[in-house]
């Protein structure tokens, strides 16, 4: 054992010396062999890293038109430790800023860290950059980095693209592991947000040796370890730029949304929300007044009504009612229900007499659908609605989306304050699309499903992406789902919609030879004295539908006044490639939502908007600029930023304060309540 102990002691000693020896060898390699590599040319320097931001992905529409790309801009950075304050005056003059402004920024940078470069001014013009760079030695601690700024073309597609913004502190904490840093921009809404990972690209890195005065001495290891930035994926959207532009044009003075979908694939051809804004306003250095103005505008231009705003669908719900009634055996294709002008206290628009399902859709006979509601099982009705995508968040590549309200018995129990406090007769208004809420996107996908004979596709905006290696990448699309409804029932409903569009509404027809299916809706809007919502769903051509459209224009009157012609024009443009009814475009563009008022046209160019905002501010003299903002503090843009793109301030549509139902859902009549809650739902968070 003594011998054994000695061997083991020697082995231990050897291990110790081996470990120490290996570490010493590593030291020799680092400090003697490679010392020059690590210390650069001069020994008195240290490594600093410079991040080189990547350009975000390009975005094209389905016709190959460029919607969004990037342009380089210069950002000025200050490293406070090396910055000479006595030079501030000269520098401020060159920059076209005041000395106080510059010193305030310097203070802000110093508070962050005096030793690292800190971005102080974004989008410095090239001529100024060259002037300052020429006198580089005069301004130690001042340098410029090239950053990529989004540039937008036509159509604006503001709500589709979404906007990007400097990463907030909360987001940074979450995303640190993914390589985000302070000052990085991150997608805040739309596809910029949904596809952030693919959009963003990979930032590059430059390692430089700096001397004790903060001046770059040399590159580190001759740039061997530098990394070039890799741009984001190129996006090919399913959007048709012409349709999108037309829809945006018509929606400018309306609150509402229009969504067009290819019924064969679920590709979204247009998704417009009115009023919209020029996304360039939110790219790069965002003006504080512009940001506040956009957020406070009562018409809520940042709010994506096409996916977020939920309203009662009105009569556009009737094709759905017909389908499920046929499938559940509540009626047959030929059975008739007699309309004598109403159903109890609920009125019909006319005295229609005996109505079969096709003519009930054509004439939009309320009596017919009141009756259906009494024949249907309520629980099954709720399930069917969910099946068609109502009352659930749509499966779509947009994060900002609402699910709307589809009542079930639990919902009514709560509303009426207990079980058995409500009767079947309370449900009948659901049959005509009141007492429930849906979004334009849900409506569009529903009409696409009706048009293609019962296949529910996942609506999506991105057809494919191309990665930097040139490989096509397809987004994850949920496989289509076949509705458990017989095809002949769809045929019957489509025929009803044809009659409705071509014999009843009529202004949706552009060429009598092209058969169109459609249904208008005039939905009761919440609030006294409010105009009805104008709703329309339609598809064309009837035999082989290429496009399905839903439009929901808030407080604009009858379905045939605004929504139907708008949808019709979009369909015509897509089906024929032309627009034969310029007069209709002009007249429908003239229709505006009740109470719509615009102080600033947010769709104009950045400079025009800025002037308008300043003028409006001068005129009102209300201190819009947060008086709480101290100089040197970060712009409120960052602190007020809505995290998910939805505007959180509860501001009612229109300038007049409507009598909106309380969010408290109890003790409310079903006729106004769900609509009311729906209206405020996105605001309640």
């Amino acid at each position: 054992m003594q011998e054994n102990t000695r061997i083991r002691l020697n082995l231990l000693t050897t291990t110790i010396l081996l470990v120490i020896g290996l570490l010493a060898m590593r030291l020799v390699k680092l400090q003697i062999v490679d010392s020059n590599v690590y210390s650069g040319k001069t020994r008195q320097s240290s490594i600093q890293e410079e991040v080189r931001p990547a350009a975000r992905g390009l975005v094209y529409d389905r016709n190959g038109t460029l919607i969004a790309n990037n342009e380089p801009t210069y950002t000025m950075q200050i490293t406070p430790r090396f910055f000479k304050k006595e030079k501030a005056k000269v520098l401020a003059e060159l920059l076209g800023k005041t000395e106080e402004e510059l010193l305030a920024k310097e203070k802000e940078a110093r508070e962050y860290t005096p030793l690292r470069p800190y971005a102080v001014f974004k989008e410095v013009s090239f001529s100024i950059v060259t002037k300052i760079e020429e006198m580089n030695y005069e301004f130690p601690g001042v340098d410029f980095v090239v950053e990529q700024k989004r540039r937008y073309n036509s159509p604006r597609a503001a709500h589709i693209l979404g906007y990007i913004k400097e990463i907030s502190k909360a987001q940074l904490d979450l995303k640190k592991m993914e390589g985000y840093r302070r000052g990085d921009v991150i997608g805040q809404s739309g596809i910029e947000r949904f596809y952030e990972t693919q959009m963003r690209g990979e930032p590059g890195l430059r390692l430089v040796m700096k001397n004790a005065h903060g001046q770059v001495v040399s590159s580190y290891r001759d740039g061997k370890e530098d990394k070039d930035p890799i741009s984001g994926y190129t996006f090919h959207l399913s959007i048709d730029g012409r349709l999108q532009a037309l829809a945006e044009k018509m929606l400018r003075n309306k609150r509402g949304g229009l969504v067009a979908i290819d019924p064969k694939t679920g590709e979204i051809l247009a998704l417009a929300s009115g009023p919209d804004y020029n996304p360039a306003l939110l790219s790069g250095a965002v003006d504080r007044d512009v940001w506040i103005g956009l957020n406070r505008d009562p018409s809520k231009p940042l709010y994506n009504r096409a996916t977020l705003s939920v309203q009662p669908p009105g009569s556009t719900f009737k094709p759905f009612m017909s389908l499920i009634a046929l499938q559940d055996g509540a009626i047959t294709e030929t059975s008739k229900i007699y309309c004598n002008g109403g159903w109890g206290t609920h009125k019909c628009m006319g005295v229609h007499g005996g109505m079969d399902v096709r003519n009930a859709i054509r004439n939009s006979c309320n009596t017919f659908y009141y009756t259906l509601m009494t024949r249907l099982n309520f629980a099954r009705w709720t399930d069917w609605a969910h099946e068609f995508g109502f009352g659930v968040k749509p499966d779509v590549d947009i994060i900002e989306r609402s699910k709307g309200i589809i009542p079930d018995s639990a919902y009514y129990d709560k509303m009426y304050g207990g079980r058995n406090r409500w009767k079947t007769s309370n449900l009948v208004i659901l049959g005509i699309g009141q007492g429930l809420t849906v979004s334009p996107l849900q409506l569009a996908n529903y009409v696409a499903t009706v048009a293609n004979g019962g296949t529910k596709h996942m609506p999506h905006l991105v057809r494919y992406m191309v990665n930097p290696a040139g490989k096509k990448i397809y987004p994850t699309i949920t496989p289509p789902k076949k509705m458990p409804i017989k095809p002949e029932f769809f045929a019957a409903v489509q025929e009803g919609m044809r009659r409705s569009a071509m014999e009843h509404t009529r202004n949706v027809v552009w060429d009598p030879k092209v058969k169109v299916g459609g249904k208008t809706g005039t939905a009761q809007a919440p609030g006294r004295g409010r105009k009805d919502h104008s709703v329309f769903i339609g598809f064309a051509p009837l035999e082989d539908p290429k496009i399905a459209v839903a439009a929901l224009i808030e407080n604009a009157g009858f379905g045939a006044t605004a929504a139907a012609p708008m949808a019709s024009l979009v369909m015509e443009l897509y089906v024929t490639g032309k627009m034969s009814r310029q007069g209709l475009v002009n007249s429908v563009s003239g229709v505006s939502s009740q109470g719509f008022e615009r102080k600033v046209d947010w769709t104009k160019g950045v400079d025009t908007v800025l002037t308008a905002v300043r003028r409006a501010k001068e005129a009102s003299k209300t201190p819009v600029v947060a008086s709480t903002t101290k100089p040197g503090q970060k712009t409120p843009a960052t602190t007020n930023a809505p995290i998910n793109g939805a505007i959180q301030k509860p501001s009612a549509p229109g300038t007049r304060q409507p009598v909106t139902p309380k969010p408290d859902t109890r003790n409310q009549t079903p006729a106004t309540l769900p609509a009311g809650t729906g209206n405020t739902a996105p605001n309640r968070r």
Partner: protein
Amino acid sequence: MRRSLWENLDYAILFVWFCLIFIGLAAIYSATNGPSAEIIDPQMRQNFGKQLGFFFICMVMMVVVMSLPVRFFMSAAMGIYAFMILLVIAARFIGKEINGAHSWIMIGGFGLQTSEFAKVATALALGWVMSRAKSNTWDIKSAATGIGLLILPAAILIFVQNDTGTGLVFLSLVPMILFWSGMPLHWVSLMITPAIAGYLTIIYEPAALVFSGVVVVALFFATRDWKLIALGGAAGFGTWGSFQVLYKLLLPHQVARIKALGNPEEYALTTGYQTLQSKAAIGSGGFMGKGWMQGLQTQMGNVPEQSTDFVYTVIGEEFGFLGSFLVLVLFAILLVRLIRTTSRINHPFAQYFFVSTVGIFLTHILINIGMTVGSMPVIGIPLPFISYGGSALMANTALLAIAMNFQMRAHEFPAHGY
């Protein structure tokens, strides 16, 4: 204390201890009171003063520990262990979280890092358990008892507290105990093969394959035992294979974190940044160093955690190869002296304590310095006697003081039938 006891004291160890703490204090001062003080957390500026205070406390503690008789440690070993484990558990519930680890108990204004003190308790308890072993062949039972009942529970508790570094230190005691309890040497080699193969797989995969081949060949010539050879192959190549599977299973950023070790530059933006800056600091020191308080990497605050886990970079940059090599030499002297003493005290209690202490120190040194020179992953673990941190300094000093005590009082150990 009797005069003759002082004559037995290992003054070399005492001297090394003083030197290491002195170098540490100089490095901590430079990292927290130079120009870089502007940018670090203001609280850190007090690190030097606090560490100096802990040093005085440690000197008092050393005198107290050395005046205790050997039988005190032998009888109290298990009690101390139980108490420390309770403290570790308590820290999970009443403790404070610092840097993600739940192992701190606040006393007054100071945090007590329970896992550090648990090291001392475990080393003592291991000595006690292993001295029960009777036979002088390999006693697998007591080794298993020591590992299963003392080391693993402590290690698991500490891993649960999210203190990975200290947990690894406990695990490193497993091979030490097995080795010292007389495990056949080829088994020992089988045991450490996966660790080395795994390390090489991360750094440079071909090296892992060559190493595994060498193990198989060596086992063939040493034993000609096909079972052992097969096991050796499994230990080497199997480890390499499981890493390939692991890369497939883990998320990309987790794989990046592992691979960053072999190639920090490629992952400089995310995970390899600390290593990059740390290597640059040490490398730029060159042979002579830039001089105390003169290192730009240090003074521009480029290296994170510089007064604690990355303190070696200050030494590397400002005292150069001379300074950092001196630290290695001092550690070598310390460890080799401890091993030499082990052969002099013929009692398992002392021997296992010494072996555990050597294992603990060696793991700390390997992981910490290995991390700063870019050979080891970034795992938060202090460099003994040099890094800022009162608990670590006191626990490590206690280990050393007990070792010096045993050596001074070697005659107090009862005769043991080895």
